[in-house]
């Protein structure tokens, strides 16, 4: 139960941060990505602020032998670059530039009820299931 409450509360804070930062406005995101046009660099400060805080606190937290509510940390350990990673990031980037939404801000902004974000979120869910089906198909091909 505590794990559920802390996940809820962390996401609540994260979502408010996204809203204050301007990430929930697709026009703002597209302005940030529009480096060849009317570039709006302000969203670069979102990453600067987030990494400044988390970069320091990550190191402090990882001095602990375990998290507060559960026995172990779940941290990805892979360091190699592979085709899936880079192809996935490429496909994600195209979708991000097209609509101006990435997953978190889209979920927060879906509360606005605006048709664009509702269509985006429904399609994103579909895309996740398409990926699961695609991986299943690939695995069955490999036997």
């Amino acid at each position, binding site marked *: 139960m505590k794990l559920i409450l802390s996940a809820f509360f962390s996401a609540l804070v994260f979502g408010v941060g996204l809203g204050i930062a301007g990430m929930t406005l697709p026009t703002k995101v597209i302005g940030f990505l*529009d480096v060849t046009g009317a570039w709006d660099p*302000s969203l670069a400060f979102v*990453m600067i602020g987030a990494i400044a805080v988390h970069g320091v606190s990550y190191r402090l937290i990882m001095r602990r032998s375990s998290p507060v509510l559960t026995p172990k940390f779940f941290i990805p350990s892979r360091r190699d670059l592979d085709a899936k990673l880079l192809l996935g990031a490429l496909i994600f980037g195209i979708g991000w530039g097209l609509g101006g*939404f990435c997953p978190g801000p889209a979920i927060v902004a879906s509360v606005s009820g605006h048709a664009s974000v509702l*269509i985006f979120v429904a399609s994103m869910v579909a*895309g996740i299931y398409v990926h699961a089906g695609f991986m299943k198909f690939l695995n069955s091909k490999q036997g």
Partner: protein
Amino acid sequence: MDLNQFLLPLIGGAIIGFSASLLLLMNGRIFGISGILGGALIPSKGDAAWRFAALAGFLAAGFLLTLIYPEALAVKAEGTVWRYVAAGVLVGFGTQLGSGCTSGHGVCGISRLSPRSIAATLTFMTAGAATVALMRVFGGAL
């Protein structure tokens, strides 16, 4: 560029970094939203509840923003329905294939100096910028 133009993104970013630290400290989890969503939609046993709680937290944040900072949800969008269908499918598929999005790779991964996350972030930023540039020229119909 006036002060608010970068002050609000900086404060919002710091709040994001703080919340990612909170989830790591309490739950031992990386705050990767595409991973949380993917694991909620295609759950493995005993691992779905906290993910749904996080998704509910995002929706609660949306409701809270409409009360305290409604400008954040004044979404304006250009283009057709198909632009958002394509964008959603690409973001859903791409983040699962690439194991992360702006939060998991861009914030958490770069904070731990993960080579995979640095490479992924450079790739999706470049792809996003290239897409916006191409849409300026060819995007009229979509």
